[in-house]
């Protein structure tokens, strides 16, 4: 599974750094390091509603520390 976290200007300001850290943590905790390929991406084109992430081909906007675990459980763990 490929996961991209946008680190473009807008998403950066809205907290990409924290999302990457949360993502790393969650992937490790769930023992998914072998299965998930986490990368950063320059602008995913959804600047107004960051932080934007892309899981496979699905773009998810408005990720924050508050809703991170909900999104992770729903889209990554399934």
């Amino acid at each position, binding site marked *: 599974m490929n996961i991209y976290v946008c*680190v473009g200007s807008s998403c950066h300001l809205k907290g990409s750094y924290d999302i*990457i850290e949360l993502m790393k943590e969650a992937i490790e905790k769930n023992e998914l390091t072998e299965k998930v390929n986490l990368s950063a991406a320059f602008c995913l084109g959804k600047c107004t509603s960051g932080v934007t992430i892309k899981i496979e081909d699905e773009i998810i906007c408005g990720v924050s520390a508050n809703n991170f675990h909900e999104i992770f459980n729903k889209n990554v763990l399934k």
Partner: protein
Amino acid sequence: MNSLCTDIGYHSLNKHGEQLCGDHIEIVSQGENSIVMVLADGLGSGVKANILSTLTAKIISTMMANAMSIEDCVATIAATLPVCELRGIAYSTFTIIRVVDNKEAEIIQYDNPHVILLRDGKNIIFNETAMEIEGKKIYKSKVQICQDDTFIAMSDGAVHAGIGREMNLGWQRDDIIEFMQMIYDCEFTAKTLSTLLLSECNKLYGGEPNDDTTVCAIKIRQRNQMNLMIGPPADSTDVNKMMSLFFSKEGKHIVCGGTTSALAADFLGKNVVTEMTYRNPEIPPTATIEGVDLVTEGVITINKVLAYAQNYLKDNECYTDWSCMRDGASLISRLLFEEATDINFYVGKAINPAHQNPDLPINFSIKMRLVDELSDCLKKMGKRIKVSHF
């Protein structure tokens, strides 16, 4: 015109407790490849010394730049400087370095510690001819310049550093030569060399200099062109034109901005590979595109570069940050401040709708202002700047 240029870096420490510096540096350029630098150290400290040294440096640099003889300059100073009530003399020492066509240096010295010349990082002793003008003993030298020759001029505050603290006799000129030979690195700019020497002096003074201390480094270096692109063009049909002009330029290429780097990668037929490591949580990670020397995010990174540039022109205190960190802003700073002498900016004026959000501290006018302010700073560093808008 040759492919060399003169890189000058200088800075002063004020005597502890003084608001004004009694040393003064004045630089006048004569055409493209010739400059006159005057370092003057006024008698005493504070306001009086400041006036004496400013007058001296201004008068000499202006007269020398207009091809007047050193005899005339000295006579003018002797007739102009106000006489000190306390000591009954009008006095300011001076060091003049005039670089002609980046080929020859003429050095004239009066009572300052003698200029140090480093060639390939090693001290070179050059001939000095003594002469007497208006009762003052003045030393004159002519040096044929080689690439990367570095001249170091200083006020006596530099050689007095450490007196009564770390060392009984202070820091002698020979100690300074040894120190400079030890830290010398061909990649260092004049500003870096002068900052390193001055901070060593400050350390020896225990952070409280007993005298105004000034160091000026002049380095004759190879010109080096660099190109930086930021922002997509206002008219999207201009993308190819902007890219082909940018990539046809000689020298390294820096691309800033998410959309801009996607367009550049498209143009080159390569992929953008974004790094995931945040080297510095404040600055978005960099990326790589085959064929581009550096790829970074746009406004936030450039904003930091501007802050570093402004600091560089002041006391260069942030040098230790940007000179070794690996984040985008530090990498750009090293390329622009240290490596480049000629910089071409390619600025796209497209408006990113996402940045017009009032919640975000970035918008179009800020981006334009950043580039303007950054190019002003770089000009003050002595670089040749060309900005093209698309």
